[in-house]
């Protein structure tokens, strides 16, 4: 009996060593991709803006200063000021926090729920599977903006509602990915062997199934953050997202609509920020995908 | 003296990916006469398919490039032909059949349409006439003409290969290049397909360049043989020369690794080692590392070709002394 345990230990050691060198390989591949690196740098910058906005700008994003309305971009106000005299640059920087928060939270929630759904669906087969997949189809039938509209119309405007709406609309791909992985791995011999030595369902999921599908999940999650930010800003633009006066790129753009003819900077910079954020996550996700599985590269 | 149809002189083809240069074909020379059939024999990676593609000017051009030599067909150098002239040659004067019949046909067109396509490209006939001719070709290769409106997925591997043959021979080419036509098929179907190729070759008086790694098939169909190794021809001669008077150590090794029906052999003798990496070919003879008769001089310089008997050429320094005698 002890010999079996010793062998198991040795095997897991070897697997860990192999994993470590694999990880290093993946990181090297990623670092070689210059566009992906660019994406990563922008993301790091945004995270910094989100965490320490005070170090970048000393203005207050909410405090109004009506004497300083509509100043064009200059050396003191890099992006100019808005209709309330607030420094646009500052509001854009603080907007990082809002968008990143919503994006990451929504994706995290939908990811966890999606994975759980996928596991249950794949494991307990037949009826449960069918029901869950129908449920997913239903969620997918409603476009994310409409779902967001419905939830906000029902429960009002707030960051929480926005995040929930986006999370709901994002669950499907995770559930599907994990489900496929579960279905294919469930019948394999090493799973049977593990069961024979007493492993329960949870252990099997954690040890055999999840590692298999982690790579595509991580890639998808990254791209998901990008689309979540887009959806959040779009809903905020429509007045259904983050309530004023919290600085949010979408609602800033919406407020700027009225002044599009005279004060171009109010519209331009928040939108560019959105683009930079989404673009960087897309680049990063693309790079991750190439690094994790170069065979997929076209 | 029979007419020379195809003459390849010192052909060199390379693939360049990034900074790596793969020398797929390094100086191939061979001659094919009208109505003759030659076997081009070698292992995977020796450069056979690249040679075949080069003749058709179908070497995929971003990585691949013909960097030297001539391919003379009916006296004209195919390498120098421009694209539109070469298109008139393909399918019409020179045709090719491929290794994997499962993927060689377009899944969204009927088999009749695919045969008719090559007819319409080279003959001035209407669509209906082309289809009639296509049906006749199908009958010729042993498939009911009535099935012309079916899609490739309705046919088995062997039948698909017949369709490929029908396409290749529809315009009566003078040269047919067959790139491992039976490798992907079952043994029994192999025999059927080879019979078909032979029969049609006789009927249309087509020259055949048969590319394969299977010495058995070559013995049945070909009159001349060229053994290719690491992009070079290492032995060249008639069927009798190669099979009964084998000279090059590689060829000897090839024969030694086949089971012999008549002898009682305990173990097959595979050739030790592997073909050298074509992106990093050694100096001198490419076979040196695996040759049991290797000498020091084998590893230096270009190996010349020696004629050990009339029309039997060997690229091996072992036969240098004989010449000097």
């Amino acid at each position: 009996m002890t010999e079996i345990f010793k062998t198991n230990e040795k095997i897991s050691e070897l697997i860990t060593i192999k994993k470590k060198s694999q990880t290093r390989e993946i990181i090297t591949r990623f670092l070689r991709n210059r566009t992906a690196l660019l994406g990563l740098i922008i993301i790091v910058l945004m995270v910094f803006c989100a965490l320490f906005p005070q170090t970048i700008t000393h203005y207050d994003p909410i405090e109004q200063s009506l004497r300083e309305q509509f100043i064009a971009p200059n050396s003191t106000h890099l992006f100019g000021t808005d209709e309330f005299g607030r420094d646009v640059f500052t509001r854009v920087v603080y907007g990082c926090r809002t968008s990143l928060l919503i994006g990451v939270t929504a994706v995290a929630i939908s990811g966890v729920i999606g994975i759980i759904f996928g596991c249950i669906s794949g494991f307990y087969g037949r009826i449960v599977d069918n029901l869950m997949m129908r449920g997913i189809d239903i969620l997918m039938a409603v476009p994310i903006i409409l779902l967001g509209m419905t939830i906000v119309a029902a429960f009002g405007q707030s960051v929480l509602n926005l995040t929930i709406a986006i999370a709901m609309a994002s669950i499907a791909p995770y559930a599907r990915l994990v489900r496929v992985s579960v279905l294919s791995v469930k019948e394999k011999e090493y799973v049977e062997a593990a069961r024979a030595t007493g492993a329960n369902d949870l252990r099997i999921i954690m040890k055999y199934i999840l590692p298999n599908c982690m790579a595509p999940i991580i890639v998808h999650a990254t791209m998901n953050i990008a689309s979540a930010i887009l959806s959040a800003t779009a809903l905020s633009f429509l007045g259904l997202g983050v309530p004023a006066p919290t600085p949010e790129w979408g609602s800033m753009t919406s407020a700027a609509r009225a002044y599009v003819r005279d004060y171009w900077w109010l519209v331009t910079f928040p939108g560019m920020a959105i683009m930079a954020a989404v673009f960087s996550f897309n680049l990063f996700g693309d790079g991750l995908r190439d690094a994790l599985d170069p065979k997929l590269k076209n | 003296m029979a007419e020379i149809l195809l003459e390849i002189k010192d052909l060199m083809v390379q693939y360049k990916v990034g900074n790596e240069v793969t020398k797929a074909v390094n100086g191939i020379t061979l001659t094919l006469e009208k109505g003759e059939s030659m076997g081009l024999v070698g292992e995977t990676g020796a450069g056979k398919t690249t040679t075949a593609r080069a003749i058709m000017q179908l070497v995929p051009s971003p990585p691949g490039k013909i960097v030297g030599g001539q391919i003379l067909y009916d006296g004209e150098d195919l390498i120098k032909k421009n694209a539109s002239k070469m298109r008139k040659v393909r399918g019409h004067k020179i045709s090719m059949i491929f290794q994997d019949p499962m993927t060689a046909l377009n899944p969204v067109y009927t088999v009749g349409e695919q045969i008719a396509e090559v007819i319409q490209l080279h003959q001035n006939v209407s669509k209906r006439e082309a289809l009639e001719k296509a049906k006749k070709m199908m009958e010729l290769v042993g498939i009911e003409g009535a099935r012309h409106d079916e899609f490739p997925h309705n046919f088995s591997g062997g039948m698909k290969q017949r369709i490929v043959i029908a396409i290749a021979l529809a315009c009566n080419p003078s040269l047919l290049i067959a790139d491992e036509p039976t490798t992907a098929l079952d043994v029994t179907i192999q025999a059927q397909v080879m019979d078909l190729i032979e029969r049609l070759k006789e009927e249309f008086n087509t020259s055949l360049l048969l590319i394969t790694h299977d010495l058995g098939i070559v013995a049945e169909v070909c009159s001349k043989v060229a053994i290719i190794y690491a992009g070079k021809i290492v032995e060249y001669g008639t069927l009798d020369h190669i099979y009964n008077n084998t000279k090059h150590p590689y060829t000897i090794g090839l024969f030694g690794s086949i089971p012999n029906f008549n002898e009682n052999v305990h173990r097959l003798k595979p050739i030790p080692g592997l073909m050298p990496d074509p992106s990093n070919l050694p100096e001198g003879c490419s076979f040196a590392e695996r040759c049991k008769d290797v000498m020091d001089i084998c590893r230096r310089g270009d190996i010349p070709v020696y004629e050990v008997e009339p029309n039997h050429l060997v690229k091996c320094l072992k036969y240098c002394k004989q010449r000097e005698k």
Partner: protein
Amino acid sequence: MIRYICKRLISIILVLFGVAFLIFTIMYFSPGDPADFILGDMATADDKALFRQQNNLDKPFIFQFIHYINGILHGNLGTSYITRLPVLDEILARISVTMKLSIISITIASVIGVTLGIISAVKQYSLTDNVIRILAMVGVSMPSFWEGLMLIILFSVILGVLPSSGIDSWKSWILPSFTLGTVSLASIMRIARSSMLEEIRQDYVVTARAKGQKEIYVITKHVLKNAFLPIITAIGYNFSRHMGGAAVVETVFSVPGIGKLLVDAIRVKNVPLVQGGVIFIAFFMTFINLAVDITYAFIDPQIRSQYNSQKSKRKEG
């Protein structure tokens, strides 16, 4: 073939039922009393109780839901709080505008997207390919409302050649269509590119060239015809998304379509309109997706023959 359609129809109906349930449930739990809203501050408690009784608002959830479904089946999606008109009428009055916008934008997106995708695939690794791919990624990352506003600044404010709102002249459709189509363009282009790349390396392409076929026909007649199936699916999918996502573009350009209708409705908490509108659009999109699936099944010869029993029995060796 009929069997396939029937199978799909049944699963669609189940999904639609679920969608109606989902939306209805969300709205049901929204705080606030419709009676307050419609009758206003002047109404007494009795008036409100009467109102609730008349509109089944005091009945249990299941009853209300079944009543609502029954309504849908009879073409009644509720009544707008604001205009007192049937929701369905409000929607139908504006649907042609959104349809027109969606069709124009998907056409632009498909034509340009597929063309760029083909070019990108045929010239893989070249500068053209890389430029196209980066532009596609930018397109996918650009928020449509911002793009719309930027286009307005450029073409309306600075150049003054195109109108920035409404649908009076044919010119006013240009900017909204382009904005709505951008994301689809990028997405379709990517699918076209990868689909072409996958087909271009297939053996039958070499066969086609070996026949002496001209390269342009090899690409269009052979490669494209095979690569087209995923492209069609992508076009269909994106078209259905246009119907849903038009909300933002219609708001930016003040186009009186369904999207704008919904956005305005939410602002004033016009629950029946939002509910009916979302359900309607979801139903519409689902049917479009179904149509795409059926078209796909028609075109793909392998699926076709699976359901055509006669010929598939002839497969033999």
